[in-house]
């Protein structure tokens, strides 16, 4: 993205595609992600959304907050439904429209991975955006494949989750698709540029994984959504990168952190109630994993 001109607050469009007064919780990170991503996609877009917080946010009957056509589909079929929408558009001569599947982490990494993997393998002309709030938030904070180790959820109430977070973007990147990127709700401009870039690369499957803080599920006051999202990146726990045709590069805040000191990950854990049972050993283990991961990154 180095050669492209980066979007700034002043050049970002003020056209809103998401109406205010939607049903998202106060301080919802997804609100920022959805609003920014739709700005980048523009009005020539059709969405496919599985059951998730987004189903509630994008609009229930009779009023919807989204000013776009949006298909509500079953949990396991998001990417398959998007494939079908693309086929229908192609058949009716409206192939210039963006087809975007917008799903949560459970709908992407657990239940929907089969359809997504199939779509990636076939190279369907769709954009898949996964907002990762690290549990099944809409149904009441149950553990998902992408919940980090040690997190308290309603289905891991005593010791926290025992397994590590599943690295979904790497799984998708292993399909060899043209564009895989990660972004964060705390860096909307970076997200905007990535969605814009994905939309410009027509012809193959494009995947964007967005780290999305959730005040009610993670246990923090709603005003800290952006603050905690930024901590997730500055501690090195969640990196912002993009893989364009196999070329890996860190972007934005993560690129600036290479070779420099990162915030200790403990600072991030302390801000959220879901990490309340985290032991010192596990904190050290996580810090060790982050350090090992960052040792491989070069500027």
């Amino acid at each position, binding site marked *: 993205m180095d050669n492209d001109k980066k979007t700034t*607050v002043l050049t970002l469009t003020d056209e809103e595609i998401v109406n205010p*007064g939607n049903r998202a919780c106060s301080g919802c990170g997804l609100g920022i992600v959805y609003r920014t991503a739709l700005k980048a996609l523009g009005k020539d877009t059709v969405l496919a959304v599985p059951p998730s917080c987004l189903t509630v946010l994008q*609009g229930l009957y009779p009023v919807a907050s989204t000013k776009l056509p949006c298909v509500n589909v079953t949990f396991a079929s998001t990417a398959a439904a998007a494939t079908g929408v693309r086929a229908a558009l192609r058949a009716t001569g409206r192939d210039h429209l963006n087809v975007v599947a917008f799903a949560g982490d459970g709908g992407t990494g657990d239940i929907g991975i089969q359809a997504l993997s199939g779509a990636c393998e076939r190279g369907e002309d769709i954009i898949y955006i996964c907002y990762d709030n690290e549990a099944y938030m809409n149904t009441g904070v149950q553990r998902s494949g992408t919940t980090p180790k040690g997190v308290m959820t309603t289905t891991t109430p005593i010791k926290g989750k025992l397994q590590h977070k599943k690295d979904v973007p790497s799984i998708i990147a292993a399909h060899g698709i043209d564009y895989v990127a990660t972004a964060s709700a705390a860096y909307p401009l970076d997200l905007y540029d990535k969605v814009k870039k994905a939309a410009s690369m027509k012809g193959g499957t494009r995947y964007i994984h967005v780290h999305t803080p959730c005040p009610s599920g993670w246990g923090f006051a709603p005003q800290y959504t952006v603050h905690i999202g930024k901590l997730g990146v500055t501690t090195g726990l969640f990196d912002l990168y993009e893989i364009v045709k196999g070329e890996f590069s860190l972007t934005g805040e993560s690129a600036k952190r290479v070779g420099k000191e990162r915030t200790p990950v403990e600072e991030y854990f302390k801000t959220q109630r879901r990490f309340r049972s985290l032991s010192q050993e596990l904190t050290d283990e996580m810090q060790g994993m982050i350090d090992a991961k960052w040792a491989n990154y070069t500027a």
Partner: protein
Amino acid sequence: MSKEEFCSMISVSEPGPGDGGNTGSWRVVRPVIDLEKCIPAKTGKPSCFNCWLYCPDAVVTKTLPPTIDYTYCKGCGICAEECPAGAITMVDEASFTKEEK
């Protein structure tokens, strides 16, 4: 079958603000912008607009000065937290009830 009949049969929603009702009623603290401190309002030039960028509900406008739509603002306080000039303060809703009556 007419388009209207078909839409009501498959429960098509119409876009519009406030599908969750007047979400401003969820608010317990209200963001109030101090125009003396707000950078774009003070200098009269478009700049900053962090409140507009980070608002999850699109209720802050990118105008001079920025305004907040209190009908739908849920009072999360992200704008106050992210304002670099500290121009936005979260004021208890109870202190407004008298003057609004």
